[in-house]
């Protein structure tokens, strides 16, 4: 009986702080989403930055990094944006946002005039997905970012167009 009490007590000590930790991250991320819905992008960044700084292993890290990248790109602070997007690619190679991360990196490389990087990202974008067009002329892929921005990639046989919030953001052709 005494043993059982000890086990319960130890378990309580172990799990209660952990759930507190998870709850704090969830709360911060929820605040970030709430701010995004309200269109307060600076607050979104603030919450995302706090998650990234204080909980670097949280389950929201992928979204947080993408959000930071978006924010820095808009400033524009291309070096910081590139750093955030490259972390997404490095840490989450199968990320559903990968295609759009690449589109951002391609745009940044174009802005910086780095031919080698432009070529590298162009090739990665064009070869990321294989498309077969039998009756249709395009294939589309969608993604929503933590900023509540809708992303759309339209694949043609030899071209990819990126739309952000319904507007053409980038186009990469073979």
């Amino acid at each position, binding site marked *: 009986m005494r043993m059982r009490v000890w086990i319960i007590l130890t378990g309580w000590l172990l799990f209660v702080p952990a759930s507190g930790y998870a709850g704090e991250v969830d709360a911060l991320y929820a605040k970030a989403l709430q701010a995004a819905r309200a269109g307060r992008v600076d607050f979104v960044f603030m919450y995302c930055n706090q998650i990234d700084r204080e909980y670097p292993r949280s389950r929201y890290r992928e979204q947080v990094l993408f959000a930071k990248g978006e924010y820095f790109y808009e400033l524009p602070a291309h070096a910081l944006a590139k750093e955030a997007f490259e972390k997404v690619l490095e840490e989450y190679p*199968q*990320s*559903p*946002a*990968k*295609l759009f991360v690449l589109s951002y990196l391609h745009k940044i490389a174009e802005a910086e005039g780095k031919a080698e990087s432009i*070529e590298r990202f162009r*090739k990665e974008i*064009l*070869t990321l*997905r*294989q*498309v*077969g*067009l*039998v*009756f*249709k*002329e395009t*294939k*589309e*892929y*969608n*993604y929503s970012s933590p900023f509540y921005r809708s992303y*759309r*990639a339209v*694949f043609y*046989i*030899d071209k990819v167009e990126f739309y952000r919030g319904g507007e053409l953001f980038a186009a990469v052709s*073979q």
Partner: protein
Amino acid sequence: MPPFRNRFLSWAAIILVLCVLVVSIVFNILLGLNKSRIVNAANTLISDQLDVGYMAYVFPNIVVIKDAVLVPNDDLDPARVVKLPAVTAEFSILEFILRQNVTVQKVKLYSPYIHHGYFSDFLKRNGKQLLDFLLRLPRVDFRFSVKDTLWDFTVGAGSPDYVQLNFVFWMKKDTIRVQGAARKDKYVHAPKHKTRQPREDPAGVSRGWPPWASLAKGGQRQAAGLPLEFDFQGVWAGEGLFIDHLSLIRKNVYLKLWGSLFREKLQLNGFAFLDTYPQEEYGTVKPVKQSGRIREYLRKAQKPVPAGHFQDKDLYLMDMDCLARISPPRVDVERLNFNFNDVPVTLKGRLLFNDLFSADLDIGLDPARSKNFAMKNLNEIRWHLAGASDGKVFTSDNDIHVSFDKAKNPNFPVTKIDSTLKGLRFLLDQYARPSARLKRGETTIATGGNLHKLFLENAVISLSALKSTLRLLEVKSPFYGGRLAGRFWLTTGRPVPKVDGTVVLNDVDVHQLDELFLDFAKAEGRLFGRVHLTSVPRLSLDGQFDMHNGRLKNFAFFQWLADTFNLPSLRQVDFRQVSSGFTADLDALKFKGILLSSGNVNISGDFAIDKNGLVASYLSLAFSKKLLDESAKFRPILKIFGEDIPMVVFDFQLAGRQEAMNFQWMPSPHKNMIQERIPNFVERIIERRIDKMMTPAEQPQAAAPQKE
């Protein structure tokens, strides 16, 4: 002046003249009497026959030898001769009076004529004993000069070829110096009755020619060659020789060496510059006045090396460092290192100068260590050469290894080239076109993980000089059951060397080419093709190939079609013709005008793949109804097409990664006919199936295609 004094001077002069006369007469008589003994003594030293016209003594210390001729004992060919029209020898009067010893101090040869072939043989037979004899002579200050030598390299009546040579050799105490110049003039064959006596040439350059030279050969000088000046100075030191300098200077050449030769050990350092595109090899022959000749002499006498002498040279050898052991007839090159146009070169090996010359050399080039070498990814070249020559042919076996650094140019597909050339025979005939025969050559080219092997047997390679900077290299060889003929034009002019070439393949058995390209293992038929290569403005290939009446077995594309659409007949396609044009450079490989025609399938279109492995292609595939009938998937659509349509055409655009290409079925009348019969929901089902087929298992589904 008192009369007595005048009379004394007169008598003294008369006595002096009489003495000179008496001495001259006595010495001339003695020379005349001993001429045969002197000639015989010389003949005992050499194996050949020396004959002397006459010998004369000129007061006070000169002996003149006229019309000396050296001929072989066993050869009656009048051309094989060394002729010395005039030789003067000066001896030391002091030595003669004090010690009654004839010590020759100066020897001068005027206008000697040397037949090269004969003189080479003579040196081979007598060189060693002559050298021993000269080395036994007491070492005295000595000067030997040769003026206006005519060295006859002519072979055959129609190809006059002479070298003019002037040089002075002198030895003073321990110092030896040789200075002179050699010049090769341009001659044309002239009929005997039109040949002028060279002595009458107003330029005076050919003054002193023996009449037989021009008369026998019929050569007439057209232009004066640029002289090659040489200058050697060395100092004897005990058992060796310090080489102070050895210079070779011509308008297009500057070589300077220095070092030492002690016992068998030769140490040389130096540098060289060479202009391989000299603007003028010959100067115009024009009359030169005496004053002009003096000015020319004074200009040459100054002998300055112009400061800009190195500026216009395109080849340069710097930091030459040679260590060799010379033990005749063998020379062991322990090291010969130099920078060739900034590319480090190393050479070591063995040379054997027997009757049969042989060489066994290891040569290495390290372009990777060069800062200026244009092809940055060329890492190193290693070449082993083992060969021998009988004087007419140089036969060698060669192993050549070339490696490339992938990191420096990831787009360059070749990583290594290994080549073995067995029985490569060079014809050593300066009057014939340079040509070579290759008994067997095997080249392996490594590209990524693939090896491409190329075999050549009994190839004939020849080189022709079309202009001073334009060479034509021709290759003819049997080639995998057919023939290969190649012609390459090499332009060595500025600003950059250029290579243009065409290779024609005729009736080649495609199946045998499987080691060259793996894909050919799946093909049968006879190949005809033409490839054009050019290096300017950039390295590129283009051409055309045709194959007739062959077969494609398990060809990757048809294999994929056969598996995907259940069309087993496509595993083996018997074609009537496959042809295509192509272009290739470092950026892309393109096939234009692809055409395949067979009973079941026809293909036409273009296909290109770039350096990133991205494909761009438009292909039109026409399948026979018989073929489509094999597949349950296609059977329903066959009813759409009437009897008047023998083949169903599918037009495709391909793009994307080569290993996983994107494809689009392009609009066409046949597609419209099919689409009209298919309900929309079936189209969507087909699209979904295609998507499923093309989405690999590991591909993330989160950003999945939008459902419509």
